[in-house]
């Protein structure tokens, strides 16, 4: 039995950290990708998400 006061705060399994890393990576690609991880394909990604990047307040040109 776990503590009844935290039924919705289950202990984090180890894979939860992998999911969190993946989520950070996705956020990075959408909001920051400037060629570091994807090279030339990044230009298309950058331009495609460009309005969102500005709208969400992320530094850009």
């Amino acid at each position, binding site marked *: 039995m776990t503590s009844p006061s935290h039924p*919705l705060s289950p202990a984090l*399994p180890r894979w939860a950290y992998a*999911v*969190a890393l993946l989520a950070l990576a996705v956020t990075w690609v959408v*909001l920051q990708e400037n060629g570091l991880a994807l090279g030339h394909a990044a230009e298309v990604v950058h331009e495609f*998400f460009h309005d*969102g990047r500005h709208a969400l*307040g992320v530094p850009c040109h």
Partner: protein
Amino acid sequence: MNSFRGVLLRGLAAGGVAGVLAGLVGLVVVEAPIRAALAVEQARGQVGDGHEHGELVSRGTQVVGGVLAAVVVGVALGALFATAHAGARRWLPRRSPFARSVALSAALFGAAALMPAVKYPANPPGVGDGSTVEYRTVLYLGLIAAGLLVVHGAGVLAARLAHLAEPVRFTAVALAVVAAAVVLLVVFPAGPDQIPADVPAGLLWEFRLASLAETATLWLGLGLAFGLLVDPATRRTRLTSA
């Protein structure tokens, strides 16, 4: 059975809902000032900052991409939020999951959106200097990281002060958070860019408010939707508590 899986799925769903709402806010209020800023940029003639050249992606596609960016980021933040909500047992342990979710999302909005909006406000296209974007990104992410530390510290402090009466504890934590936020806003260096003279102040103001409306929708929408999905008072399926 590990109930974190169910919590994570609810986080993804809540993030998707919040992302769609934020994307629609972007479509309705942020696109207009972006269009006006692009017109200003175009009136300058060709500027050598590496953007908007060669029509890599059409304007219409960029508008779709702008909405999609909010949705994808919303889903990713939903996963992180579910993890933080599950991990942050200290965060208002005696309140309902719904109240904890909304409070946590408000705190994260403050750290990850409001603080940067005050110190390094959002700019439409055609304002930032391409040569300083890396430095500006470091400042922006650094301030967010520092703000998240303050949020974490607030939880730790509240737990440490558990022996105090609730109003006293709340006031003490609130004062500490405000003091820490003020220190961060003063200590972090100013952004390096000057606003170009041809960008109207009214346009800048409109864009920044609209951007804040979108980030507020994203974060608070996430907290509300996640809270509704995990609170025993509203959810239909039961999460195993073992």
